[in-house]
């Protein structure tokens, strides 16, 4: 909470912010209108597994501010798609509640302002790219030359213009994904839900999509991304939640999650088993990633000492420096590495 005297400045940064805030809500008090998504103990229990644990999504409480890029991360089956379906009103919570732009989940009131790309999207097979976007545009009441112009723009944007007359039936996996992104953007939404945006895309396609996301963010759009591709999410997201087995196990701003005060990181390759044992004794923490051995030390001198010993033992120093965790490490620490 900010001091009561300072007024909300959010609207200046974000043109989509509700105008009422300019009327003098205090900073930190305008959250009601500054939030794109808010959920409270949102739960969806499908069944219980053999050990009696609930399967689905349990007690998810999150807040996504307008203009944020929010990442919902988690291994397969952790409840990401379930969360999206709840937010879109496709399925209903067993308990808990949520709001999007201040409207209860499932209400039609916020559908005008959102876009949704499902995972592995499916469309009417008999339509071609243009017809498909005309169909989705018409669902927003769009039509005429305004819609046609929008469709042309989007087809160029997702790289489908040259393939616009191909029918969905004959689409490749990546083409479905691209046209899926286009239909999600047809109404120029303020809030976009993207489930595994880059799945099925070639590296260039994935890069283009990331650029697209950046440009949307720059225009003040709110993005809600589901993924397990942590490397992609790390530079993109402002804030993430990590889900595991339907429960939230880590949440925060990416900067905060990655920051570790005062630790020194030593990365080695070609470490012998003998030396690895020694390293475990001297380091605070040792992680092994494929061929890479990562050791963390509390002080610089301890790290240097081990680095020298490692070199003497025939290992190669790949990196030595201040420790920044990767999202992958945060993820593995949170999820516990279990499959």
């Amino acid at each position: 909470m900010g001091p009561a005297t300072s007024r909300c400045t959010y609207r200046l940064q974000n043109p989509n912010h509700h105008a009422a805030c300019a009327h003098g809500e205090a900073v930190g008090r305008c959250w009601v209108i500054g939030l794109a998504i808010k959920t409270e103990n949102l739960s969806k229990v499908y069944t219980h597994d053999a050990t009696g644990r609930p399967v689905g999504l349990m007690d998810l409480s999150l807040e996504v501010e307008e203009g944020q890029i929010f990442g919902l991360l988690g291994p397969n089956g952790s409840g990401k798609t379930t969360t999206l379906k709840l937010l879109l009103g496709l399925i209903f919570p067993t308990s808990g509640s949520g709001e999007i732009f201040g409207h209860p989940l499932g209400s039609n009131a916020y559908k005008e302002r959102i876009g949704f790309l499902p995972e592995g999207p499916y469309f009417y097979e008999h339509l071609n790219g243009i017809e498909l976007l005309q169909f989705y545009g018409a669902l927003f009441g769009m039509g005429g030359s305004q819609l046609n112009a929008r469709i042309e723009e989007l087809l160029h944007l997702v790289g489908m213009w040259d393939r616009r007359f191909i029918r969905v039936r004959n689409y490749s996996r990546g083409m479905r994904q691209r046209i899926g992104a286009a239909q999600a953007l047809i109404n120029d939404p303020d809030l976009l839900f993207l489930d595994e945006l880059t799945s099925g895309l070639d590296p260039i396609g994935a890069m283009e999509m990331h650029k697209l996301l950046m440009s949307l963010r720059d225009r003040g759009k709110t993005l809600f991304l589901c993924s397990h591709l942590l490397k992609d999410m790390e530079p993109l997201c402002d804030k993430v939640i990590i889900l595991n087995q339907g429960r939230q196990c880590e949440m925060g701003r990416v900067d905060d999650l990655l920051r570790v005060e005062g630790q020194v990181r030593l990365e080695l390759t070609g470490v012998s088993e003998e030396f690895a044992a020694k390293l475990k004794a001297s380091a605070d923490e040792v992680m092994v990633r494929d061929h890479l051995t990562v050791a963390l030390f509390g002080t610089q001198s301890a790290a240097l000492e081990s680095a020298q010993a490692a070199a003497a033992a025939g290992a190669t120093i790949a990196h030595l420096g201040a420790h920044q965790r990767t999202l992958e490490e945060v993820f593995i620490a949170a999820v516990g590495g279990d499959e």
Partner: protein
Amino acid sequence: MLPVIRVARATFHEAWRRRFLNGILVFAILIIGSSWLFAYLQPGAELQMVIDIGLGSIRFFGMLIAVFLGTRLVPDEMERRTIHTILAKPVSRAQFLIGKFAGGAITIAANLILMGLAFYAVFAIKAPAFVAEKPEDALIFQAMYGNIAKAILLSFFEMFLVLGIAVVASVIFTWVLSVITTFVLYFVGQMADLFQQLSDPERGAGLFARIVLGAAYRLLPHFEIFDMREAILQGIYVPWTTLAKTAGQGAAYLIVVLLIGYLVFNEREV
């Protein structure tokens, strides 16, 4: 309104590409087209036979199409997950359901029109010859052309009602169960009058029969109201007001059915 039209249009285009339904249509047209051949099996009643087979086929195959189309409309959307992107747009579940039904109704209408045209062609070509051989049918024959058109029109209303029941059953039950439910309602609905007779205390119906069969008579869709067979065969003029009344009854029942479907679908996870 626009979303309903768009969903209906897409539904029609998808449905028109269903091989199985096209197969039923082709088969129906073959049967109707050869109905005059069967007529020779009933010497002396060829005219009646052509009408029986032709209109009977339209009703029967129309009903099959309505059941197998209607029970797949919504489940297909869910299984193929096309419904997810649609309901994420500003399309209410009511609009979606009505759009699916309307698209199905257009498909059925197109099928009935094709079958009707085939029958009309056969009738126009073959009936005069049959009448020439049996002059006492000449008067009846005059009234038949109009009545056949009215009978086909009635099949529209009838099949829309079957379609509505099929769509709603598919939202409530599994596919197999929804097919069975629709068939049972259709065939039992043909016999609604029988229930009334059986529940008549003056004919010796007990309390139990009166309650159960009486309720069945009131709740079941009365499909027999769509049957004009007798009137056509006897050359009785059927006034348009009768047709309008029948259509009204069908529409009232359809609205109730769709309303139930909406209430269930609104709570349904997709």
